[in-house]
């Protein structure tokens, strides 16, 4: 339990650094720390396959994309506050804790009835074998739709980032 507390602390701290650090590059690094923390949570939750996918796809592939774009664009570091933004800032700081409260009320009700499901884990819980069986039997159509989505996104990214000769 202590380990989980430490990971939770690191996850929340790195999330805060993502939002409040002025340099986008530092934000990217702290986002990688956050994603690794969530991968470790997956490990504690018997989701070994998702742990591997989180590290490979998120902390690997997607974050490399972010690092590339941040370094490519050479963004300005400082961002100054516009006058109209003070209201939005105040609303964000006010609404954030309210959002935590609302989500926690909704999730806590559900969490309290956990005694109703005391069953043990099946032997293949969270492994690639069981997820593959679910994906290719019950969720086959959705799986194919996801592959179409990836192809469309790939084509879209290539078309958007292409240099136009004019």
């Amino acid at each position, binding site marked *: 339990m202590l380990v989980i507390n430490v990971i939770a602390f690191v996850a929340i701290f790195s999330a805060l650094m993502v939002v409040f650090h002025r340099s986008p590059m530092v934000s990217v690094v702290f986002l990688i720390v956050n994603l690794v923390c969530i991968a470790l949570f997956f490990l504690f939750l018997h989701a070994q396959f998702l742990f591997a996918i989180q590290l490979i796809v998120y902390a690997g592939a997607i974050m490399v994309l972010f690092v590339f774009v941040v370094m490519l664009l050479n963004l300005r570091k400082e961002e100054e506050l516009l006058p109209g933004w003070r209201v939005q800032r105040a609303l964000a700081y006010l609404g954030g804790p309210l959002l935590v409260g609302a989500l926690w009320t909704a999730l*806590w009700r559900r969490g309290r009835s956990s005694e109703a499901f005391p069953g043990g884990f099946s032997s293949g819980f969270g492994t690639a074998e069981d997820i593959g069986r679910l994906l290719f039997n019950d969720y086959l159509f959705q799986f194919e739709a996801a592959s179409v989505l990836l192809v469309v996104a790939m084509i879209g990214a290539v078309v958007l980032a292409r*240099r136009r000769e004019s």
Partner: protein
Amino acid sequence: MITSFLPLVAAVLFAIGAIGVLIRRNAIVVLMCIELMLNAVNLTFASYAYELRSMSAHVFIFFVMTVAAAEAAVGLGIVIAVFRKRQSADVDEMNLMKW
């Protein structure tokens, strides 16, 4: 124990991501905050999968990751296209389609 603690962590992470989307003006940081929120949802899914001993949520997390990858690719493509045109990735300056 773990299933009542982790949804709270996920709620806090989601709220931090939402605050980031509201207060940051750099388009790339806004995209990163959206990734933060998607991950918080994934964490909630995983903790309820653990609590209910059901693997369906793992499939949902798989699909959320697919959509997140597609969203990151297209989003960053848009940021590059806008930056090339305006030399800035500031979301306030992208106001052509705002009311």
